[in-house]
């Protein structure tokens, strides 16, 4: 595997893949605008409705449906930042969004864990969040951290405890997948402010961001959207994610599903901009199929031709994109399915140019954690990363003089040029890790040992004691106020 100690190795590539032409992008955008103008999106939030009413959107307070004229859409979208920084606890891990660089994180948010001691499935808990945050902190494939599983032992304030335990085990940017509602998010902002020292510092280098999901078709979640407004006010980035299921909650055609999902995202983004112009927002569509016989959720059908077309749609709006990857439906740690479904994901999503991508390490459609799965998935990630690197063609790498000195029929092992490059030129996959006898090791055994090694040896710096003390006080207050 690649060198993985305390560095981040995002996918950097000069290559681009266009899945959609400009006419198609314009047609999709026109469909979105038409849906927003004619059909509208439901916002079950008085706060959101009030913001739209003030800006002359067509608001039906009874149905809570908002229809947004295209002029208002374009005006609001003009303030969305295309690039910004996701701050980290360790400034070296700050992520500056930029063209040609794709940052990956782990998957989320699972609810079951295959316990590494008992081998049995059990409900996830806070200690699992901390464990995976520590593993994430060590791995170079991980540019930032997601809530990998939920802290089910912490009840309604679990999102705050997940953030706390992540900070105590991880020094990268943290993107919460679970924080919802105005009250929780205000506590979240307070914790981030304590961590950074001031709200101004939070704005400059936001140490957290938040995923908010829409409800297809064309409904916003009250708790999600009101929480997002709180974070937007503090300059904390939001990812608006739509997960349309084709055939049930979305049209059974790609274009229709994408346009409808886009309308959900753009309506939320417009709200965010009207409330706080310049609020950083990511665009994300993770579409899936409903099996036409059983209605079962199918993330990986045979035809996945537009899996990463939403990235281009985001960029067409001038927004950064979050792409979804590694969501295998296999419940097995290392089956053919668990690798085959996801293998092209990191390649395609990076070629499409997504700024951030989730997420490695879960099985059973984002629900089941084997702690060692992230090591196996990191191997797939690094294969993609190396595949997309620009090739170095220079007199030194062409080595014509070396070829001349070997001559036909010889070999290159005696060449100093070979000695210089052979050791590092071949990048070892997890299948090529050597044991002491020079034999290739079993990859799963290797992955398990690596997890054990990281947990025994990698201890990221926790927040300073005075900061942690304040965070603990905030958590205690939240627990008291919000716990039923």
């Amino acid at each position, binding site marked *: 595997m690649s060198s993985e100690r305390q560095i981040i190795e995002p996918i950097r590539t000069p290559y681009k893949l266009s899945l959609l032409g400009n006419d198609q992008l314009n047609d999709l955008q026109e469909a979105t605008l038409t849906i927003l103008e004619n059909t509208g999106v439901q916002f079950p939030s008085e706060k959101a409705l009030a913001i739209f009413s003030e800006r002359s959107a067509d608001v039906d307070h009874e149905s809570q449906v908002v229809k947004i004229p295209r002029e208002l859409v374009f005006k609001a979208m003009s303030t969305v930042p295309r690039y910004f920084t996701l701050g980290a606890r360790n400034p070296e891990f700050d992520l500056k969004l930029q063209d040609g660089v794709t940052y990956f994180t782990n998957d989320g948010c699972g609810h079951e864990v295959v316990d590494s001691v008992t081998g049995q499935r059990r409900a996830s808990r806070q200690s699992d969040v901390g464990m995976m945050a520590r593993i994430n902190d060590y791995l170079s494939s991980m540019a930032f951290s997601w809530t990998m599983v939920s802290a089910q032992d912490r009840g309604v304030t679990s999102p705050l405890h997940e953030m706390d335990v992540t900070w105590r085990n991880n020094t990268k940017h943290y993107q919460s997948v679970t924080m919802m509602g105005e009250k929780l998010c205000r506590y979240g902002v307070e914790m981030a402010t304590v961590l950074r020292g001031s709200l101004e510092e939070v704005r400059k280098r936001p140490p957290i961001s938040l995923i908010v999901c829409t409800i297809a078709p064309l409904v916003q979640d009250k708790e999600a959207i009101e929480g997002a407004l709180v974070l937007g006010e503090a300059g904390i980035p939001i990812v608006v994610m739509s997960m349309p299921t084709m055939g049930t909650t979305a049209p059974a055609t790609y274009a229709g599903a994408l346009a409808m999902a886009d309308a959900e995202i753009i309506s939320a983004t417009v709200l965010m901009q009207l409330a706080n112009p310049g609020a950083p927002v990511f665009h994300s569509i993770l579409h899936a199929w409903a099996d036409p016989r059983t209605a079962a959720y199918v993330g990986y059908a045979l035809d996945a031709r537009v899996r990463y077309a939403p990235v281009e749609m985001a960029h067409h709006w001038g927004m950064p994109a979050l792409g979804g990857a590694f969501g295998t439906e296999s419940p097995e740690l290392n089956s053919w399915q668990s690798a085959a479904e996801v293998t092209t994901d990191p390649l395609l999503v990076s070629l499409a140019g997504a700024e951030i991508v989730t997420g490695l390490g879960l099985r059973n459609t984002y629900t089941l954690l084997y702690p060692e799965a992230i090591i196996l998935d990191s191997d797939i990630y690094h294969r993609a990363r190396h595949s997309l690197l620009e090739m170095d063609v220079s007199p030194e790498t062409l080595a014509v003089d070396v070829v001349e000195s070997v001559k036909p*029929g*010889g*070999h290159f*092992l*005696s*060449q*100093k040029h*070979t*000695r210089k490059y*052979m*050791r590092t030129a071949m990048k070892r996959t997890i299948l090529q890790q*050597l044991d*002491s*006898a*020079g034999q290739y090791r079993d990859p799963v055994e290797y992955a398990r040992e690596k997890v054990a090694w990281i947990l025994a040896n990698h201890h990221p710096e926790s927040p300073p004691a005075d900061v942690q003390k304040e965070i603990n006080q905030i958590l205690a207050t939240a627990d008291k106020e919000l716990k039923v």
Partner: protein
Amino acid sequence: MTDMFEKLAQSVIDGEPDDTSTLAKEALEQGLDPLKCITEGLTKGIQKVGELFASGDYFLPELIIGADAMKEGLEILEPALLGEQKREVVAQVVLGTVEGDLHEIGKTLVGTMLTANGFQVKDIGVDQPASAFVDAAKEVDATIVGASALLTTTMLQQEKLVQALEEAGLKPKVKVMVGGAPVTETYAKKIGADGYAEDAISAVDLAFRLADAPA
């Protein structure tokens, strides 16, 4: 004197054949004992290379270039050995790739590993008929003959080699070890070879067994 032995050893460890050659000449000019130059210099150097390879610190190029350096040194020092002087070796080995097969690297690696472990290796090269192995075995009074074949079409020559050694009256004194991508333990037994090794590292263990010497 000790300094010169150390320099010779270091030039092998560093994989600098030109330096080894220059140092060997200097040593003779200074009147140093060529046998000691070999045993205290070159051999210690190649043993260290073997250790570094076994521990994973050295990779194949370092191993091969180290062996090249030793070879350069031996070419200068061995002709200068005095009277009955002979360097001590585990066993004499003849190595080559069989007739019709031009693949070199496998047997070169085996030769390097054997050299690093104290065997004296005569590498007769690629595309060698059975008679060439027999002649070389007689010439150096070999204990082991190793034959490499990378193709299913050329591995048949390994059987011919076993027969040729028998016909020449060299078996069972001379042991035959075979290797190469299509060769298996079962095939080795079938053709009457004395041993098969999957790679260069296990070839060393096999050679020690065949030479009846402690590894």
